[in-house]
């Protein structure tokens, strides 16, 4: 049965972008209802698609697929295609739900901004690109959508381009992710060289017979690209700065979708990585390091959105660890749960910022009393993040820990637990700073219904989603099982320790907490964290300033040296001409004229008949004749 309506899922949001693009600002404002409704329709279709692919499980043919030829190169067709298989169906649902919530939320959040139309257009384009990536069964299409998302994140981060901050952040984001994309390009070239096609199924199928180094190159390339997109160390620097964009955009892009795309693509192409085991371990190391470092940095941030940003980086680190351990399911499940509660937290943060008119947590406090719904939903989100029992976070994190234990990566388990503890700590720190303690802002009031609705929906899902773990695994074709009791106990203990520490430092206090006392005690370790481990500093001086100087040098070199050299040849020719001319006028002529002038004595009349210049010409002519004669005779004679 032809399910071509599946193609509508990405097409609808794309359509709303195309409709909104040519319109004027006023017209866009009137059509503001279009993007969210398109998104909702797409969500409905995704659910329908999910139902149609139920019970899922692992089998060869995708439920639905469509392919079309993009071009012919060297006679071979270059095909692009979409396919619906369990992994795609599940992720579609997650993405569309979160996107719909964000769009509805944004109606309230952005309504005062006069370029609101443009915001919704780009948001829809972004979602279309993400959905197309999820459905894509062709690596070239994946790459295309990958870069399209990069563009949309550039436009969204730089939405308020009048200000210096967003402008710099958007450029930094685009360029850093593009550094990652170079890896993707190289991977594509290697795949085309070896497999001759970008069709995912064929590529995975043939991965075994590739040339020796090829699998390594491809997997390294894909890893590097995923690190760029999912902001892993050392390419994570752009995500915290990306908070300069509108919060709902950050919620969608930097929590649920784009950053997750890296994990999604690696999960899709995991069979290739199996042919290059070294890369898997590398991925695990990167994941673990990022989880820990980001967690530490999140603990010292004062900007609420930056805390959440670093928390996302840390959670993505965990997903990379899961992928490194070879379990795509654990990573995807964590990706799903994380999408829900992190977007919830971001939307909540949006409300908090609106209420407190600041992003700096030190100027917030006592919001709990005035914003009950926000506090409730935010608390559910925080607890889920911390990994507290009934919530989704707990189950997905435990699954990662169980996979690690199963694969005997005990060192990594230590890292993960430490990171979870840290997560719990900075979540509670955030909670207490924002909700408890003295109120520092006047008339705190609850957000508008349209903003709270999505948050409550997401909170509800976060409550329920945890229990869907095993069914989720079976849906994807892996045998699903509940995490062992021991693992559950350990992780709850770790969470409790984290929350306890958080409460001890920041909880139950009347006045604003000062952290100066801790700064002395931790000393330069604290400063390092505040300086974001000097990554930004080194990148600025090393790469950015270095590139400026290099290009200044190249431009000067080009303008003076290369130009000079090539022009020089021309001017040299003219110079010799002038030289010869001067010689001809001065020397040859002068000598003879000199003689003529000397003889002026015999009256000006004869001067007229003087043949000064002529003499030298005749001499030159006769001289030439004689020389030629000598040449002829000598050559003949010899």
């Amino acid at each position, binding site marked *: 049965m032809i399910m071509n309506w599946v193609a509508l899922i990405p097409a609808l949001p794309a359509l709303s972008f195309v409709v909104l693009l040519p319109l004027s600002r006023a017209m866009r404002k009137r059509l503001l209802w279009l993007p969210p409704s398109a998104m909702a329709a797409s969500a409905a279709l995704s659910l329908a698609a999910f139902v149609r692919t139920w019970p899922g499980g692992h089998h060869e043919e995708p439920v639905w697929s469509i392919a079309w030829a993009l071009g012919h190169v060297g006679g071979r067709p270059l095909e692009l295609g979409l396919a619906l298989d369990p992994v795609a169906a599940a992720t579609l649902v997650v993405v569309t739900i979160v996107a719909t919530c964000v769009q509805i939320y944004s109606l309230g959040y952005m309504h005062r901004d006069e370029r609101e139309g443009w915001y919704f257009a780009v948001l829809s384009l972004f979602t279309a690109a993400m959905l197309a990536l999820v459905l894509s069964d062709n690596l070239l299409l994946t790459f295309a959508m990958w870069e399209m998302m990069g563009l949309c994140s550039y436009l969204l981060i730089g939405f308020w381009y009048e200000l210096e901050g967003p402008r710099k952040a958007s450029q930094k984001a685009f360029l850093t992710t593009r550094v990652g994309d170079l890896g993707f390009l190289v991977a594509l070239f290697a795949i085309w060289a070896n497999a001759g096609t970008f069709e995912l199924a064929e590529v995975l199928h043939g991965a075994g017979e590739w040339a020796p180094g090829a699998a390594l190159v491809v997997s390294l390339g894909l890893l590097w690209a995923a690190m760029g997109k999912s902001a892993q160390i050392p390419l994570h620097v752009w995500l915290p700065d990306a908070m300069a964009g509108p919060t709902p955009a950050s919620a969608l892009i930097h929590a649920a979708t784009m950053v997750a795309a890296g994990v999604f693509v690696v999960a899709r192409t995991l069979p290739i990585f199996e042919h290059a085991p070294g890369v898997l371990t590398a991925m695990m190391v990167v994941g673990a390091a990022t989880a820990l470092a980001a967690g530490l940095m999140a603990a010292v941030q004062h900007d609420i959105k930056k805390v959440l940003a670093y928390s996302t980086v840390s959670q993505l680190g965990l997903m990379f660890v899961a992928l490194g351990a070879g379990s795509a399911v654990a990573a995807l499940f964590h990706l799903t749960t994380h999408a829900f509660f992190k977007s919830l937290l971001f939307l909540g943060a949006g409300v908090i910022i609106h209420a407190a008119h600041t992003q700096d947590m030190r100027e917030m406090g006592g919001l709990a009393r005035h914003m009950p719904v926000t506090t409730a939903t935010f608390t559910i989100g925080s607890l889920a993040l911390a990994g507290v029992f009934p919530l989704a976070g707990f189950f997905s994190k435990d699954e990662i820990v169980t996979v690690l234990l199963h694969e005997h990566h005990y060192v990594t388990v230590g890292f993960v637990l430490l990171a979870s503890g840290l997560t719990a700590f900075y979540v509670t720190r955030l909670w207490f700073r924002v909700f408890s303690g003295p109120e520092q802002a006047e008339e705190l009031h609850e957000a508008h219904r349209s903003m709270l609705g999505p948050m409550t929906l997401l909170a509800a899902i976060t409550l329920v989603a945890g229990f869907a773990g095993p069914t989720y695994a079976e849906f994807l074709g892996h045998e699903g099982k509940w995490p062992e009791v021991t693992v559950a106990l350990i992780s709850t203990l770790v969470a409790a320790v984290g929350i306890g520490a958080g409460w001890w430092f920041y909880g139950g206090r009347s006045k604003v907490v000062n952290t100066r006392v801790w700064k002395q005690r931790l000393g330069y370790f604290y400063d390092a964290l505040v300086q974001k481990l000097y990554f930004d500093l080194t990148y600025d001086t090393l790469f950015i300033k270095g590139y400026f100087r290099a290009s200044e040098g190249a431009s000067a070199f080009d303008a003076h040296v290369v130009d000079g050299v090539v022009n020089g040849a*021309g001017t040299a*020719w*003219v110079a*010799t*001409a*002038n030289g*010869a*001319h001067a010689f*001809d006028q001065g020397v040859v002529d002068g000598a003879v004229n000199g003689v003529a002038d000397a003889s002026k004595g015999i009256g000006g009349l004869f001067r*007229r008949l003087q*043949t000064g*210049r*002529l003499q030298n*010409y*005749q001499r*030159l*002519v*006769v001289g*030439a*004749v004689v020389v*030629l*004669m000598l040449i*002829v*005779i000598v*050559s*003949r*004679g010899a």
Partner: protein
Amino acid sequence: MTGYGLLIPELLVLVGVAWALFASALPGRDRGAAIAGAALAAVACAAVVVQPAGEALFGGALAFDSTARFARAGTAALSAVWLLWTAARGQGRTREATALALFATLGAMLMSAATDLVTLVLAIELATMPAYVLMGYRRERVEGLEGALKYFLLSLLTSLVMMYGLSFLYGVTGTTRMAGFDLSGAGVLGLLAVLLAFVGLFAKLSAAPFHYWAPDAYEGAEPWTVAFVSTAPKVAGAVAFVRLLASVAATAPVVSTIVLVAAVASMVLGNLAALTQTDVRRMMAYSGVAHTGYLMLAAAGAGAAGYAAAVFYAFAYAVPSLGMMLLVAEEGVLVEDFAGAFSRRPAAVWGAVVMLASLIGIPPLVGFFGKLTLFQAALGAGFAPWVVVAVLTSVVSAAYYLRIVRASFFGEPVAERAPLAPSVAGSVAVAMCVGATLALGLAAGPLLGWLGTAIR
């Protein structure tokens, strides 16, 4: 129409001379003489074109092969154009100039057909004698006369050297008919004879290192007389040069090396010196030297294709440079005089652009095809490095030719110049040159075909 009918074009030119000499008695005086001369020259050119190639006359002294016919037609056409211009723009008493020009044309036409040493010498003298007078035509201008004197003495010296060489050539081979030269057995004397003979021809074509007379003579003379002297005899000169070269090259290979040396020297020296000139006459003199260099590069190739290319190139050079010199006569001799010319006479300046482009070798003009066939012959003879020199120097030539274009388009007119009296015939003459540069470019086929490969 064989037999002496072949000489009709020459006779027509002779009638032109007579008319010019008796102009004061005939209607139109100076102007009439010039117009009549132009008409007769044009008819002569047509007659040559119409006549089929005839057999040699006067016991082999004159050969009417296709190369000779090409040169005779070309010379007649060039002088017709020049005479037309003189009729329109010539100031003062120009009937003697007309007579002398027609004498020179006659000499050139005979020169291109001469296959006998004696006839050749006499024809060369007949062609160059009037040139001396034309160079110093304005009696009252002493500088003009001085220039003519220098030109005369140097030219006489070189022609005496040539005659001395030809005397040895006759002595060694025993005959004056060019066809019969066999210098293989003659040893050093034969080579010497050839060398001395070519010195004269080099000087006539103003090839380096015998070109010294040209810049001073051109600078001293009236631009409109220089126009004739520097272009009309060139085609015939090239034919004579090529004919003599063909007759001796087979048995005296050293001559092609001599010609090659002179060719490269001319190209480099000519272009180099022209770069720094501010007087357009001196610039055109040096450019003449350079183009003679290109022409001799092909001739040095000592192949039938080389000879044909050389003669065709001489014509491809003569036509645009005649047009340019006539423009110089109208606009003024210094490059600055051309400043702002475009605002005054756009059509004329466009003509100048076309002609200069052809001299540079920009397609699809006649100059390009000249250079193309020329390089083809030279490369065929294995002169690849010299062709590279030729190619580089022609780029240099673009530099100084463009100075005129730049001045006329973008220069600010220095002094307020009285606008030139509009004259139909004058601009028609220039227009004919421009038209020929364009048309012959596109119709290079038949022209090259006509030239064919007469000279082996």
